[in-house]
């Protein structure tokens, strides 16, 4: 399987073309011990129909919070959106009244999570759970809903769907449960699917099947997908565009082909070099020294500078602005494109 076929579909951002999902300068903060700590500090990205955007980053980068913010799942008082905008299909999600929000969630916008066991209610049959979602958003009879569920289960390649519809989550394997989650997410033909580490908890052979399924479904239904992962390999093989996040900021963003043709940000390069590859022998991995700073550690300048081989005093004091490294390829780095000698 090669990645070279991907990346040929890039969104051409004409000045009057609104992408399906447009996130601009999103800021999210967490209140802990009386202080407001910024977690996501101004990220912007967009996804269009029939397109897959990959958001890649390690723990602490804020990618999961971003996805929850888009879905409107950031409830409570501890985590708050403190700035920016999220526009879905032209609507400003952040100012949308609650009732309209709920009409969209699960309907035109859907999400699948990392742990399929905990996102499915263990005491209800899987068929009933999908039916519940269907009937929430559509006026449809119970028997019609059931038929639709069998259709969906067939679509996600669950064997014997008319029997499996009455199974409980614990009677299915991890891969099957994730497919059920996909079926539930797709039940109302959403225009946008957000998948937060959908295959991280799955075996590699099952992961391949699930990712193939998602690609196939996108081809058929034209769904826009936001795929969040820490696995660069998964991103490379499934996404059209990539956004690399580091500690709440967008280190680099480009089409997949452009990104992997030339990695502009030292973090992205470091990340790629850290991966032990299957097809080659490497004596020592080029690990990125140090670790991600904790939420409370206040930093001046570029968040990555303590770990960066190219860092200078400029990096320590000035947060780099987002620059256009190449057309369609944005970076936040004072030394974009430079390789450490």
């Amino acid at each position, binding site marked *: 399987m090669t990645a070279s076929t991907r990346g040929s579909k890039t969104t051409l951002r004409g000045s009057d073309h609104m992408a399906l999902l447009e996130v601009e300068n999103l800021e999210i903060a967490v209140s802990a011990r009386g202080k407001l700590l910024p977690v996501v500090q101004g990220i912007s990205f967009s996804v269009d129909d029939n397109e897959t955007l990959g958001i890649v980053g390690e723990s602490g980068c804020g990618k999961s919070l971003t996805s929850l913010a888009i879905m409107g799942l950031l409830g409570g008082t501890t985590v708050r959106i403190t700035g920016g905008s999220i526009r879905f299909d032209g609507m400003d999600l952040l100012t949308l009244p609650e009732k309209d929000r709920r009409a969209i969630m699960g309907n035109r916008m859907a999400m699948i999570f990392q742990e399929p066991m905990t996102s499915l209610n263990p005491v209800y049959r899987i068929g009933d759970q999908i039916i519940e979602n269907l009937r929430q958003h559509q006026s449809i009879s119970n028997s019609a809903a059931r038929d639709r569920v069998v259709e969906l289960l067939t679509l996600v390649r669950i064997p014997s769907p008319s029997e499996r519809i009455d199974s409980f989550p614990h009677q299915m394997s991890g891969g099957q449960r994730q497919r059920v989650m996909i079926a539930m997410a797709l039940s109302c033909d959403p225009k946008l699917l957000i998948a937060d580490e959908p295959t991280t908890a799955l075996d590699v052979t099952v992961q*391949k099947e699930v990712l193939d399924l998602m690609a196939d479904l996108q081809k058929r239904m034209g769904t826009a997908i936001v795929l969040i992962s820490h696995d660069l390999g998964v991103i490379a093989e499934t996404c059209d565009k990539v956004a690399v996040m580091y500690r709440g900021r967008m280190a680099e963003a480009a089409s997949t082909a452009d990104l992997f043709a030339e990695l502009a940000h030292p973090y992205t390069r470091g990340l790629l070099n*850290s991966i032990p590859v299957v097809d080659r022998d*490497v004596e020592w991995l*080029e690990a990125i020294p140090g*670790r991600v700073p904790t939420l409370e550690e206040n930093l001046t300048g570029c968040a990555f500078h303590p770990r960066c081989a190219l860092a200078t005093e400029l990096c320590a004091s000035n947060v780099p602005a987002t620059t256009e490294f190449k057309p369609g390829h944005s970076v936040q780095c004072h030394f974009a494109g430079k390789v450490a000698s």
Partner: protein
Amino acid sequence: MSEPLLRISDLKTHFQTKGAGLFGEKKVIKAVDGVSFDIAPGEVLSLVGESGCGKSTVGRTLTHLEKATSGTAQFEGQDFLAMAPAEFRPLRREIQMIFQDPFASLNPRLKIEQTLGEPLFIHGLCKTWDEARIMIAAILETVGMDPIVMTRHPHEFSGGQRQRIGIARVMILKPKLVIADEAVSALDVSIQAQVLNLIKKLQRDSGVSMLFISHDLGVVRHISDRVAVMFEGRIVEIGDKHQIFETPQHAYTRKLLGSIPRVTIGREVA
């Protein structure tokens, strides 16, 4: 031909599940169902497979955390599976284990020095705390940490740091065989690289043998000399690293290798 350090013959570890209800049928889960392999001194053998294949159970059986159902395991020629706890204790110095979860493997109540000192005192490697602290400081430096950390508690450290401490706990005894049970799986990619490099360096410098258990083939390629592929409790293929990765014989091995997503940079496969 020197004697292998570890020789496993037809190891089986079966678990009994309680039957449903009063008279339900008890099911037997054959987690490990006839596994045999050798590890030579100074060699790294990886056990690779997907979830449920039994690789972790092999490791846990060898450290007596699970009871073997049948089969033999010899360490330096000595059969040790059937040993009583007291008899096995001295061997525990030679056979050590690195655990997967850096957050759960250190007792949160104990200071690092207490956790690292415990094995020293148990095996009589030192008599006083002063002696212990010298050894603890040395091993902490070896794993890349400042000896001052020994006075702190686990919750003050990140996942990668805790895993280094876990490695220190293992290496402080200078064992002959280290079983690494998914030792880097719970770490972020960039931290994983650091810890993998550390493990590789320690293994090279000390000549310790390793049984490296993992589901990640990339990691396995990086660290091993030989690889054993497990599926449903059995080894389906075992051989030299290059044989397995470049000319896999078994269909399952080929399926595994084919499923891994790869990054293509420019035109070449990374």
